[in-house]
């Protein structure tokens, strides 16, 4: 398919997700706890898009490869090395704003 409104169902039934390095795709997948392999295409991408993918990779949260190494990565990968990526905490933001405005 080209576009779906939500990938939630597909993500739920997947065992492995292979994605480009778009932030939305990465973060949405990480939240489901499914293992993620990010394929990086430096020629197509904004430099800043790489920042998140690289940080996630350094933190051991995703596997990374580029188009040419995709097959060998799939053959040799060890998904058990992946570390969970805990969700963000918007309650911290709410607390901060409440302090700014003096709401307790």
């Amino acid at each position: 398919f080209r576009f779906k409104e939500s990938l939630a169902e597909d993500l739920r039934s997947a065992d492995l997700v292979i994605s480009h390095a778009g932030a939305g795709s990465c973060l949405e997948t990480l939240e489901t706890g499914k293992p993620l392999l990010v394929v990086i295409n430096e020629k197509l991408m904004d430099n800043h898009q790489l920042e998140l993918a690289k940080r996630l990779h350094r933190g051991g949260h995703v596997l990374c490869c580029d188009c040419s190494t995709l097959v060998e990565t799939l053959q040799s990968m060890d998904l058990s090395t992946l570390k969970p990526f805990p969700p963000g905490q918007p309650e911290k933001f709410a607390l901060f704003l409440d302090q700014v405005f003096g709401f307790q």
Partner: protein
Amino acid sequence: TGGHTTEILRLLSCLSESYSPRHYVFADSDKMSEAKIRSFEQKRAETFSNSQFTLDRIPRSREVRQSWTSSVVTTLYSMLYSLPLTYRLKPDLILCNGPGTCVPVCISALLLGLLGIKRAIIVYVESICRVETLSLSGKILYYFSDYFIVQWPDLKEKYPKSVYLGRIV
């Protein structure tokens, strides 16, 4: 747009009803944000019955990788819309997270503050995608916002006046 809207809705998810009414401002070319916002507000209305919100569109102030000079022109054009809009809404708080749309709105608010008409507190939350560098909106609003929030420690180091609360979306 897209990711920005998803992020900002997450930021709003834990706010109390003191932060009401909510006025959403987004680009006229944005086709998807309206549905996401309505869905969020609908859910919110299930818990908070007096929940109020409005939606307003202004011309998109910059396309991705648009040149500097033409961006200034398009931003000024967007301000023809954002200035009367901000004057009408007179917000106490402006919360933004990086799409070009936020720049004309914040500049409008700053102008209204300078003219003594309404002083809004500007809170800017840089996108979680920004790990090492700021977006263009971020680079501008770092100097003009009251609170500038980053979500990765590298940015806190580079921009010492920023606030780091960890990941909040």
